[in-house]
């Protein structure tokens, strides 16, 4: 022991990732230092950014909020900053960094320093792109205590478009994050409360990227039910156990090693398996959330119009708030056409729930996939759906559409035009690989 040392010998245990010192960090002190934002259930008015901010502020495990502003996610950071500033003697801090890349690096350092705390941020579009060098490291890191909230916005600057389409999140499918899409303020709030439970689960240990549409959801307000902090803590504590692996502070460990290709295989296999295990864990967390708070919890997708073991003529697969327009017009469309029409609004984007999607769509005669992000081919969702259906003996025809690019509204006319286009497949006609729709017609 060095002469200056003031520390006493400490209980430590060996783990596959190095030594963990048991009593170095007293998490109960962090929990005790949390100042509740809500002591009872309340209904407030909030836009999506505020809903996301409130959720992160209510978690006792969130004490550092790193960020860099970018439209349309900026209000998440501003809201957190305001609430932190209002909280006298609180321990929560906002960390303003000089660029999104720095935010991502910061998340690596913070999450590795203490694996029992949750480190959130929010970004959009090219901000997420700017983080990419490090988000790919994060995705492989096992640091499930990172939560990157993506407020969807079109990417690329030629031309620049600041409205919300999910081309940013869909361009990052391979970063290694669990990507969950939300629609509506309540679902945003609820999803963010559940995401760390999934990411930090010992079988999963994968960072999460909950996301929602910029402008359509980030900037429009609605009623939001917020839960009391203590109930959120009880729920999260059921799922988040102290991490068995050492962090930088409570460990004698090395993270971010360099490996030869021979050993790289094992790391990648483990990463894929951790990600895929989220398929098993996610429904359990969702069910517990629903039991606890009485609202639907995490799910692979929202289902509309499906009847038990009954065939549907046309199934729609899409995501985001424009799916609500389809939900609203679906009954009339069924009446008018005599077709049975159902739909899936995807929630879990990555890993894509192939099995569940196949089971659902196996009962459809044709599938219309509505993509809302630029893609070089038939669309991100189309490829996933086609892959999910590929093992069926006689898979339904898949019709691919693009609509709502750049955050454009997908109107009732546009939905009807897309549904009419998909009916061509039911009639046995050839359909083009994809069509791009806007304002009620194919362009």
């Amino acid at each position, binding site marked *: *022991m*060095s*002469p*200056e*040392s*003031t*520390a006493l*010998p*400490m209980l*430590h245990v*060996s783990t596959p990732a*190095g*030594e963990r*010192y048991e009593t*170095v*960090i*007293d*998490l109960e*002190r*962090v929990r*005790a*230092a949390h100042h509740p934002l809500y002591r009872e259930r309340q209904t407030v008015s909030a836009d999506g950014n505020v809903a996301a901010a409130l959720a992160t502020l209510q978690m006792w495990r969130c*004490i*550092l909020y*790193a960020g860099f502003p970018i439209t349309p996610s900026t209000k998440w950071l501003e809201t957190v900053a305001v609430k932190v500033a209002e909280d006298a003697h609180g*321990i929560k*801090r906002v*960390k303003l*960094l*000089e*660029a999104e*890349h*720095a935010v991502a*690096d*910061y998340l*690596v*350092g*913070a999450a*590795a*320093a*203490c694996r029992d*705390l949750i480190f959130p941020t929010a970004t959009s579009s090219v901000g997420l792109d700017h983080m990419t*060098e*490090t988000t790919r*490291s994060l995705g492989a890191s096992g640091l499930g205590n990172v939560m990157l909230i993506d407020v969807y916005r079109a990417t690329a600057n030629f031309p620049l478009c600041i409205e919300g389409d999910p081309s940013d999140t869909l361009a990052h499918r391979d970063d290694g994050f669990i990507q969950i899409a939300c629609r509506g303020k309540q679902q945003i709030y609820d999803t963010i409360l559940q995401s760390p439970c999934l990411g930090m689960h010992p079988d999963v240990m994968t960072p999460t990227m909950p996301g929602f549409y910029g402008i359509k959801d980030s900037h429009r307000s609605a009623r939001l039910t917020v839960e009391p902090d203590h109930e959120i803590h009880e729920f999260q504590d059921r799922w988040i156990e102290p991490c068995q692996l*050492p*962090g*930088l*502070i409570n*460990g*004698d*460990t*090395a*993270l*971010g*090693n*360099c*490996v*030869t290709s021979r*050993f790289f295989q094992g790391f990648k296999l483990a990463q894929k398996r951790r990600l895929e295990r989220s398929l098993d864990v996610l429904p359990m967390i969702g069910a517990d959330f629903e039991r606890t708070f009485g609202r639907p919890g995490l799910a692979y997708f929202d289902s509309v119009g499906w009847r038990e073991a009954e065939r549907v003529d046309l199934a729609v697969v899409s995501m985001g708030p424009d799916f609500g327009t389809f939900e609203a017009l679906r009954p009339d469309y069924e009446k008018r056409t005599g077709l049975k029409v159902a739909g899936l609004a995807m929630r879990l984007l990555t890993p894509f729930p192939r099995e569940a999607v196949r089971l659902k769509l196996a009962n459809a005669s044709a599938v219309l996939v509505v993509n809302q992000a630029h893609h070089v081919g038939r669309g991100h969702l189309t490829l996933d759906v086609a892959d999910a259906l590929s093992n069926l003996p006689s898979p339904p025809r898949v019709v691919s559409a693009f609509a709502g690019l750049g955050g454009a509204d997908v109107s009732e006319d546009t939905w009807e035009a897309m549904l009419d286009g998909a009916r061509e497949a039911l009639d046995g006609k050839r359909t083009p690989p994809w069509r791009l729709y806007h304002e009620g017609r194919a362009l």
Partner: protein
Amino acid sequence: MSGYKETALKESCFRPGSTLCPGCMESVAFQNVGRVSDNGKKTIFTIGTSCAEVSTLAFPNVVAWGRGDRAPDDFAKSFSILHNVFESAPTLAEAVRDVADSLESCGALKSPVQVMAASGDGGAFAIGLRALLHTIHRRTRVTIMVLVNEIFANTGFQYSPATMPFAETSTTPTGPDFPGNPQMPLDYIHLAIAAGAGLVAQVSPAHGKLFLKTVERAIECPTTAVLFVPAPCISGWKFEDGETVELALLGAQCGVFPAFTWERGKGGKVLDCPLDAKDRPGIEEFMARQRRFQHMVKRDPATGTPAIQPGREQAMERLHGWVQENVERLYRLAEMK
């Protein structure tokens, strides 16, 4: 402050087993910093991608870090290290510092933690200048060590913003009209001071006692301490085995990278490098020992004296001018408080 002998007997967190080149100054620096940091506080290192990463953290090779053969019972002796992308080391360190400070502020962490970042000059001055300057600008209580070997050594000895003028690198080759690197180096010491560092130093283990004392002061600095470590690279500078420390000393004495220490509010000093060029060793001897300058200087076979290559006189004159400017600039910076 610990005595030189006392420090030498401490347990370094840098251990045998690295695959750094024999004679690499980085391993000498790590060995020394590793001893100084054995001071009763838990040490956490962050590093960006560099020789330091690929040569010390390779799996399944030996991870050349940690104090002792086994995890120590004394938490203060424990050691952790984190690597991420090239430019990330200062930001990683800042994050670790903030988490530790937050935990301490609510009583959740009672054992002190010290955080050090290590980058190469490629990671710090080229791809990572933003990260370096902003962590300094935020006055983060970390020690940032930049190992300046004047090249991107890890990727094959390419030009970096710290490359000495007229040096041959794999991306600034020489030719009849191309005398190596045409750029003047980035004034990184001035940048670090201007960004707000609490302590800035340029010193290598060639100045043994000064190096240890400076590292000790850097660790104790209440804001960001930045330690630029001139690091002769045996493979990139192309010099003979066993000359690393001599070359580092000579380079400092002749004015290429003078030993310099500075603290905010106190000012600084240039050490072992007189202001007047005639009182310093000539840079020709420093250059003649490295094949990266063989197009500029050669030894007279009869006398062994370095002589300027024919046709390079003008370039050599410019180089002398840069060295003198470099020394004078540091003397001026030393006067700042």
